């Protein structure tokens, strides 16, 4: 394992008396797949929201790629190369799949408003270039057939894929995935797992992922962090976590 790409130190977050996160610390190594698990309402999504600046933590520090993230804001995080998908699909509902994916490329855009308005300068070449990138990603995730569909009319599972494509297209260094496989059947989950592995391996993207399917987590991740009631109750390799009795009682139950 190489050094930490993201390090979280002592992060706390509360909402009107509800402690969503309490003094969370852990590191995500460069190039690893880190799974975040825990019961419902444990604070997993909140933690992702803190990392890319959707929520502002009350306390604590974040370091990304060696630099302290003092006041993370979503756009800043995006510019630094942190991509994200959401638990409740947050797609641009009335745009097509292709346009959703293209929108994910904004952080790479250089052409100005005026260039676009008058179709001069970098406008055309950039559009062409973006189009290629987007098509590649769409092909990679095997959703070409739906390229021109309005996203709002796609079934849930496909929407999750589109979201992944949108996050992926700008080649982020860190990808935060919030339940990317919810609502999918076994095969589909495997397919997505393969995509995630490919991205991780081929593009060297570091991934933090929330997932409830423990089988997937075990198969996919290098490192698992367990949250419960806003606290970290486990942190280690998949096997270690699985054998941790706290984790079993709080989360897994006896089923697995």
């Amino acid at each position, binding site marked *: 394992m190489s050094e930490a790409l993201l390090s979280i130190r002592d992060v706390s977050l509360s909402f009107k008396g509800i402690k969503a996160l309490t003094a969370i610390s852990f590191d995500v190594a460069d190039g690893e797949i880190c799974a975040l698990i825990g019961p419902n309402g444990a604070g997993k999504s909140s933690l992702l929201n803190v990392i890319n600046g959707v929520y502002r933590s009350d306390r604590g520090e974040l370091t990304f790629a060696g630099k302290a993230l003092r006041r993370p804001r979503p756009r800043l995080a995006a510019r630094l190369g942190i991509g994200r998908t959401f*638990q*409740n699909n*947050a797609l641009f509902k009335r745009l097509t799949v292709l346009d959703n994916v293209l929108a994910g490329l904004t952080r790479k855009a250089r052409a100005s408003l005026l260039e676009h308005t008058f179709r001069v300068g970098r406008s055309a070449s950039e559009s062409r270039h973006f189009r290629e990138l987007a098509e590649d990603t769409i092909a990679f995730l095997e959703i070409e057939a739906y390229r021109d569909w309005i996203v709002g009319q796609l079934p849930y599972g496909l929407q999750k894929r589109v979201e992944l494509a949108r996050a992926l297209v700008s080649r982020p260094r860190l990808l935060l995935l919030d339940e990317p496989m919810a609502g999918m059947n076994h095969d589909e989950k495997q397919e997505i797992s393969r995509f995630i592995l490919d991205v991780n391996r081929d593009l060297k993207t570091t991934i933090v992922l929330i997932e409830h399917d423990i089988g997937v987590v075990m198969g996919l991740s290098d490192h698992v962090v367990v949250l419960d009631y806003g606290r970290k109750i486990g942190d280690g390799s998949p096997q270690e976590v699985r054998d941790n009795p706290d984790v079993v009682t709080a989360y897994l139950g006896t089923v697995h």
Partner: protein
Amino acid sequence: MSFFLETLVGGLLAGVMYSLVAIGFVLIYKASGIFNFAQGSMVLFAALAFVTLREAGWDFVPALLVTLVVMVAGAIAIERFVLRALIGQSDLTLFMATLGLSFVIEGLAQLFMGASVHELNLGIDDIPIEVGPILVSQFDLLAAATAGALVISLSLFFNFTRIGISLRAIADDPLAAQSIGIRLPTLWRIVWGVAGLVALVAGLLWGARQGVQFSLTLVVLKALPVLIIGGFTSIGGAIVGGLLIGASESLAEIYLGDLLGGSVSTWFAYVVALAFLLIRPAGLFGDRAIERV
């Protein structure tokens, strides 16, 4: 000082009149997230129906009841032919539908009841009475009392009955509301019916002040800033907003008017409202938008 007080009191009393119109908006917005532009036409229609009956020789109470029945029938028709067909459409689409509706209502009002200007006499003298150093009109006090009573009873009605929560559920997510058995049609009829009642009250009071005529529809312009300040979803907010707007508008006209050349009250209320929004993006008492990811 007494001049200041008089201006202030005049403004506050006017503000109550604005609230009266604003409540109609709040009701419908609460129930369906619709910004009902036809509220002004409903005010006109109600007042016109009432005077027409009165002028035809009806007594006060029967005229009032029949008007109310007409308004409720209208509410049922609106639910049946417009709202039901537009369930789940975007806010703007619904908004525009109410604009279309306002054409229909205005057209119907004039078709059946003519376009003449009518006097509406509620039998309350508009004679000033002296309260200390200031003059207050009996009529205005009555209007204020009516509005107050209306607000309190509606607040109670909506906060302490199931209807209140059901309405918020519908406004939040009509699909989910239907999925658990909340009857949109029934509730919409109730709310639009109550909005018709409010329109009737507003129409009577405003009609008595300014005559029953087409420009009654314009009273909505006074209600909008009230809504922004109070919040679109709060009945109590409508009254607080009304007082704030009435008072500030009146004072501005007097004290800023000279400075800026008068007529500042055309926009002053909106600017006050805007300033409020910058501090509280959902008005004083409105529900904040919820967005979780």
